[in-house]
Every structure is written in structure tokens, then in C-alpha cells.
């Protein structure tokens, strides 16, 4: 059996699966009494798989969204895009590998693609800082947004970050300033902006490239104002209450459709997108092309105007005009 990453909530299932593997390695012909046991275990595993993956809680979805084998921005770019030209650097300080900006073609449509970039392995993750962006990364994205607008290219973004990096240098170089500028520019670009939540949507670092004219989310991705762990630490002084907080924060794709923030949800195979990346990516391609198609006809100024109206409606208040 190949070792695979086991999420917390998969553990009971994984243990039974391991046991089954072990049983199967025995010679059943010599141990006929085990045949029945194997059958029973198989049935139990089937039942447990249903109940484990059938309806995931918010916290379980957060775990799936962080699964190391989950398809990442780079996978989407490699699979969905052709004629890719990566654009590097902010032209002022550095090139942040935690964010990718590229000219890329999806289904014949020329676009500018932006995405948070996590690594496949530890080495890559260190280079890419686990998808946690520094100010120069946001400034690279801003540069790409301006380029897209100047040349009428729609923007497609892939959201997958635990959040903007909380470090000394990031603060020193104006993390808040860079994010604010990204929000400002993205809100005003006169080209279509289609966003896809593919994994983690951590706070301001996600939002900096994470809103537009259409927001699509994978079923097990999340998008949240704060990580469930940090929320639990602050409100309960107990990170162990993360699961509970995940439920309170309304951070799942489904919740966010209800709140009017997310437009569509891409279903994932049982267990998560990593169980069948090809199917998920082809569904994403279809949704993105659909969104781009629907937005293609609009006038540049009208696109930005509609995006403003869209943002304008978000929020639930009491009282109102007094």
C-alpha cells in the first residue's frame, strides 16, 4: 500500500483500510475462516466511506482544502492553459514565488492568470512560502492587472492561500499597503475578472486577487475572514475549538452562495478533488469559459460599474437610513 496523507476525520476509515490490506496479504486459501471477515470488513468500509465523505462538516472541508495532494494553481495552469508566459517581478523589489502572474490561454481565450502558488513538496513549499504572499507578490499581481486592462485581457484568478505572510519584512515593506492597492486596482479594472477558489481562501491575502465579476468555488474549498484556528484562539483562547469556529464562520462554498458572495460551486468527487483531479479541472475549465463568455460582450466601463454594484450589495445591516 502506498503511504498517503490521512486527514484527521479520515483516520477511522484509514485504519480499517489498513486492516483490510493486511488481511488480504494473508493467504486466504490457507485461512478460509478469514474470507467472511474480509467480506464484512469490506462492507463496513463501504458504509464508513459513505458516512465519512457523504456530508462533510465545515471543518472537514477546511482539511480537504489543505490536503497536500489537492490540485494547485500550477496544476490548473498546466492543465487548462496553453501559450503560457509567466510574468515575473514587481519591478521594484523582488519576484515573489508565492504568487504567479502569467499571460495564458484558456480554451482559445487569451487571459491574464493570477494565482496563489503552493508547492508540491517541501522544497517547493519553502520557495513559495506555502502560498503566503509578501508585498512584492501583490505588487506583481497589480502590475499584471494593469497590463490586462491596458490590453483588454480578461483576468482569471486561482485562490489558494492560508493568508498573506505575517512577518517582519512583510510589514516593513507595506503588506497592508500592497493589499489595499490590489483591492483598489482589481475593483476598477475595466476587463472581466473571474475568480476560482480551489483550496484555501485565507483572509486579505486571498481577497487581494479574490473578487471580481464571477466567483466560482470548489465544493471543498473555503474562503474566510480568519482561519478557524486563529478565530478560536482569539475568541476562546483555545485553538482546539477550530472545528466549532469553522462551523460559525460560514466559510464553505455553500454558505457563501447563501450569503450572495459566491456564484457557483463546482462539485468534487467523493473524498476531495485530489481523488480525481482531471474531472475537477475539466469542470473548472468549463465554468471559467462559461463565465468569460457571459462577460465578453460587456463594455469596459460597464464591467467595472457592474463589479462596483456587485460589491456594493454585499453586507447585512440593521437600521439603515436614519
Amino acid at each position, binding site marked *: 500500500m502506498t503511504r498517503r496523507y490521512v486527514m484527521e476525520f479520515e483516520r477511522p476509515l484509514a485504519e480499517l483500510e489498513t486492516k483490510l490490506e493486511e488481511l488480504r496479504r494473508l493467504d486466504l486459501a490457507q485461512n478460509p475462516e478469514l474470507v467472511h471477515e474480509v467480506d464484512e470488513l469490506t462492507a463496513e468500509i463501504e458504509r464508513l466511506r459513505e458516512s465519512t465523505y457523504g456530508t462533510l462538516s465545515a471543518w472537514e472541508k477546511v482539511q480537504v482544502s489543505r490536503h497536500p495532494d489537492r490540485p494547485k494553481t500550477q496544476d490548473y495552469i498546466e492543465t487548462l492553459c496553453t501559450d503560457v508566459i509567466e510574468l515575473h517581478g514587481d519591478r521594484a523589489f523582488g519576484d515573489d514565488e508565492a504568487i504567479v502572474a502569467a499571460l495564458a490561454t484558456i480554451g482559445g481565450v487569451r487571459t491574464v492568470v493570477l494565482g496563489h502558488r503552493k508547492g508540491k513538496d517541501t522544497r517547493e513549499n519553502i520557495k513559495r512560502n506555502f502560498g503566503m504572499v509578501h508585498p512584492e507578490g501583490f505588487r506583481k499581481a497589480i502590475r499584471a492587472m494593469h497590463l490586462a486592462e491596458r490590453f483588454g485581457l480578461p483576468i482569471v484568478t486561482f485562490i489558494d492561500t492560508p493568508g498573506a505572510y505575517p512577518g517582519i519584512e*512583510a510589514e516593513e515593506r507595506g503588506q*497592508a499597503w500592497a493589499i489595499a492597492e490590489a483591492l483598489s486596482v482589481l475593483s*476598477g479594472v475595466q476587463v472581466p475578472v473571474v475568480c476560482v477558489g480551489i483550496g484555501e481562501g485565507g483572509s486579505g491575502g486571498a481577497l487581494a486577487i479574490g473578487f471580481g465579476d464571477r466567483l466560482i468555488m470548489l465544493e471543498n474549498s473555503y474562503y474566510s475572514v480568519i482561519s478557524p484556528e486563529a478565530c478560536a484562539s482569539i475568541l476562546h483562547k483555545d485553538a482546539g475549538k477550530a472545528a466549532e469556529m469553522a462551523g460559525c464562520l460560514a466559510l464553505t462554498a455553500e454558505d457563501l452562495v447563501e450569503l450572495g458572495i459566491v456564484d457557483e460551486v463546482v462539485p468534487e468527487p467523493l473524498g476531495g478533488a485530489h481523488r480525481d483531479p482531471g474531472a475537477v479541472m475539466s469542470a473548472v475549465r468549463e465554468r471559467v469559459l462559461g463565465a468569460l463568455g457571459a462577460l465578453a460582450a460587456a463594455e469596459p466601463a460597464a464591467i467595472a460599474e457592474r463589479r462596483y454594484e456587485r460589491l456594493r450589495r*454585499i453586507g447585512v445591516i440593521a437600521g439603515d437610513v436614519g
Partner: protein
Amino acid sequence: MSISDWFKARESRRYTALDGDALARAEVPDGVWTKCSACKKIVYDGQLVENVRVCPHCGHHFAMCAAERVDLLADPGTFAEFDSRVSSADPLGFTGAKPYVESLDAAREQCAMPEAVVCGRAEIASHPVVLGVMDFRFIGASMGSAVGEKITRAFETAIAERRAVVLVTSSGGARMQEGMLSLMQMAKTAAAARRLAEERLPYVSVLANPTMGGVTASFAVLADVIFAEPGALVGFAGPRVIEQTIKQHLPKGFQSAEYLLDHGMVDDVVPRGQLTARVGLVLDYLAGGERR
């Protein structure tokens, strides 16, 4: 609650206050004092009010409530609040250690105001402005739907009436009890600030202690001119989060207004006593022409 109700509710308190149209200094009982958190010396409250809540011994800037801010910045008798009834709902039915509605009620009671920000029309150095001030006492002046909506309307009102915008920020960041509705206010307020800029209307922000997270990373720093108050803590990530992440202690003065000035993030650090004059002068430059 309208501004006049609000000031009425506050009448017994010791803050200087703008009551309806008239500036009224509330009576400060003799002998009431505060210990300065910076120099540990005793400061009599009368002295503190006189000195715009700056410690006369060490210059430490105490927190100011929204009414005091308005009083400090607006030309006397010019402030007229709008959107005073916009306040927070509890869209997620959020329950942390205590239910969000309870936190809201407590804050409304404690601060005698319905939300963490007060916005209104005013004049500063005779320039017509929209003035918005945040009050940290109100759930850390975190930005939920109501704060986001009020800030957005502040920009929109300024655009409609060709006014400048002056905002005094102070906030712990996004209001997590409203989940993603709160995060999205960052984009919404940033978009509104951008529209103001496109209209070439001036925007001056004053970063007061503390301004963190989603407020810093959206409308607060999108101003044409950014001032910060001495010693104010300003940044994106909170010091504790950073220390936990990098597993080392932060340098002294990290994320202070002075540190930000050194790192090119703000136009100046302005002591509170000079703030009104400085903002007024900036408006003289950016709002065009002479004072009326």
C-alpha cells in the same frame, strides 16, 4: 440613534462634546485622574481634556472616542452626522465565547453609539468635507457590514457633493463575527475610495492607535495624504500573530507610526495638538483655492 440622541445619552459623561450644532464642553469633576500607561504618572482628567488627551508629562497619546475626534477636527458647529442608524445585524447568528448580539449590545451600551464609526458632513478649515471617525471601544472598531457600509457611503456622499474625505481610523481589523461579509467590506470600501480618487477629490486619513488588519489593508491607506498619530500601532498582521509565526521577538517600536514613517508608509507622524491645523492645510492644497 441620531447624533443628537447620542450626545444626549453622553451628556453625563466627561468627554467634551458637540451637542447638536453647538460645541459644549462637559463638566469634568475635580480630582478625577488617570494613570498614564506610558510614564505611569498621574494625570488629572481636566488636564487631559484640555490637552486633547495627550499626557502632559510624556506626550503619550491616549485613545479618543468618536465624539472627541469630531470635536477636535471639525470646525465648531459644522458637524452633521448621516447614516446614524446604520448598525450591525447578526447575519451568521454568530456565537463565539459569547453571542455576537451580546457583544453588540454591550458595545452600544458602553459607547452610547450604535456602531464603531461615525460619519457626517462637516467643515475643516472651512473646506466642506465628509468626516468619519472610528471608535476603538466599539468591539475594537472592527469592520463588519455596517462599518463597511458607512465608510462606503461616506465616499459616495463626498462624490455626490464634491467634498473631500477625512477619516480617522482605529481598528482591530475585520469583524470576524460577520465572516466573509466582513472580509468583503475591504473590497467594497477600497472600491469606493478608488471612485473618490477617480473624481480627483482629496482624501486624508489619520491612522490612530491601533489601526490593523483589514482596515489598514483597505480604505485606510488609500488616501492621498496619510498621517499617523505618535506611537500609534499600525500594520496588517498583529504583533502576536507575527511572533507566533516567526518564533522570535519583534524589534522595539515595530509597527509604530515612527517605524512606518522610516519605512516610507506614511507622510508624517503628527502630534494630536497639530493635527487639525495640518489636515486643514492639506485641504487648502488639495481642495483647491483659498479657505472660504
